[in-house]
């Protein structure tokens, strides 16, 4: 009797927990499903047909968004920016972190703490000055200017993360490399970077997410539609199609699906990165 009672309570408990978790999971997924669903409807059926699965699938919206909505250009731009910015961040911050960790030069600590302090200042506190600076340098409305700014946004966090890894790198490894004839750059390339591979994974993933979803600087710095990344482009697109919901949803789907795919492929690293506490600072 007693065992049965416990088994019963255990079952009820786990069912309740599953109901709770499932309802939240559905709340998470449903709006995204609704977006995809509406993307397959026409401008007339979307107002009439409220069934879960539409009766007629219409693929034309994606074609409209892709060609008329300029999405081909926006997507390409987003890819260019993400690749350039993330490469730049990994390159610069690993070199900087290596020198903060292993080299001795005057003012090392002061410069390092300046970098850490820069991390504390949020972007909204600095973008006005950044915009003025970029105007003075004639870098507004250029790809290069935007990439530089975005590298700057991600730099301090990455330096901090790389430095914690390089600090843990055993001195013997470095000595061995030196005896084998490696210079400082050689040690950085052959020893330090491979050693910090987990850090690189975290930095690449989180900075890619940031750059892909960035909006404020893209609005300020890029006025030319041919230079705009996806997020900025959607806003232009939304302005032009504010009543044509299916086409708008098709555009949103095209913006959302790549990032969800990348997330699903990388989710193990993302969870590890968040859990390790190093991203939290």
């Amino acid at each position, binding site marked *: 009797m007693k065992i049965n009672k416990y088994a019963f309570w255990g079952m009820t408990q786990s069912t309740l927990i599953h109901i709770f978790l499932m309802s939240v999971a559905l709340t998470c997924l449903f709006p995204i499903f609704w977006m995809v669903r509406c993307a397959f409807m026409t401008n007339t059926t*979307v*107002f009439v047909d409220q069934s879960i699965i539409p009766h007629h699938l219409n693929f034309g919206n994606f074609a409209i968004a892709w060609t008329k909505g300029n999405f081909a250009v926006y997507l390409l731009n987003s890819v260019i920016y993400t690749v350039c910015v993330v490469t730049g961040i990994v390159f610069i911050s690993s070199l900087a972190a290596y020198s903060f960790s292993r080299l001795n030069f005057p003012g090392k600590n002061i410069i390092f703490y300046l970098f850490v302090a820069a991390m504390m*200042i949020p972007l909204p506190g600095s973008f006005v000055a950044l915009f003025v600076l970029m105007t003075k340098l004639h870098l507004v409305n250029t790809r290069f200017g935007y990439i530089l700014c975005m590298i700057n946004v991600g730099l301090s966090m990455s330096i901090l993360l790389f430095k914690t890894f390089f600090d843990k790198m055993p001195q013997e490894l470095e000595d061995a490399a030196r005896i084998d004839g490696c210079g400082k750059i050689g040690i950085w390339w052959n020893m330090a970077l491979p050693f910090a591979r987990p850090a690189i994974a975290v930095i690449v993933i989180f900075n890619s997410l940031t750059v892909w979803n960035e909006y404020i600087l893209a609005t300020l710095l890029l006025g030319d539609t041919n230079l705009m990344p996806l997020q900025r482009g959607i*806003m232009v697109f939304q302005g032009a199609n504010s009543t044509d919901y299916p086409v708008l949803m098709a555009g949103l789907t095209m913006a959302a699906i790549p990032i969800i795919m990348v997330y699903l492929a990388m989710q193990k690293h993302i969870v590890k990165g968040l859990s390790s506490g190093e991203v939290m600072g």
Partner: protein
Amino acid sequence: MHFIGLQNYKELLGDKLWWDSMWHAGYITLIALVFQNPLAFALALACDREIRMKRFYRVVFFIPPVLSQLVVGLIWNWILNPEMQNGQYIGLLNHLLYSSGFPQMVHGWLGDPKTALTTIAIVNSWQGFGWGFIMFLAGLQTIDKQLYEAAKIDGAGAWKTFTNVTIPMMLPVILVVVILTILGCMQVFVLILAMVNEGLVNHTDVPVTRIFSAMQNTNRFGYACAEAVIFGTILVCVSFVTKRLSDKAKQA
């Protein structure tokens, strides 16, 4: 260009719209702290056991945070659409409310100044709880299972175990999540742009939109800079204070 001393700051102190916008951001933050974080904690507690489909939940709860605020805002804007066409509500929420027998609940959620900010705050929480969930779950999994067993042997019930073992052990993680929530929510901007797009300027303004409009609509860069400095200083202070608190919690 000429130097005008503290003129901009003086004007800013008396700018009601600016302090209103500060309060709006604070309200969004408050909703997130009160609803989003406890929900994330409850979900993490529910997942912190041998349970089927744990991986599925963990993956799904983090999907909204990887989407951009713009995409999230526009999806919800469409779901909350208040318009009618051919006698039917075209927004999903109003349609559901109408057809499931609550026609008096049908509402222009984003058009009404009374509900707009709360609606935005809820959508913001919908998007944000995944972060908290992942961090809470990671924190819960580091708690030594022996502590729970010891508590059980000492005769502590589920609630006692929760308040005397789980909460104290989780305090550092909770503080980190709280500080990240505050910093994140105070800076919400794109979500608001996507959901109301300056339709209700003075009811849903947040500091970042004020800074933007000072820059772009009136071209007052000095004033925008003053706003940005004040806003940045407040955020730095908040993170500094919470950092001190969490250091103390870690020592204890």
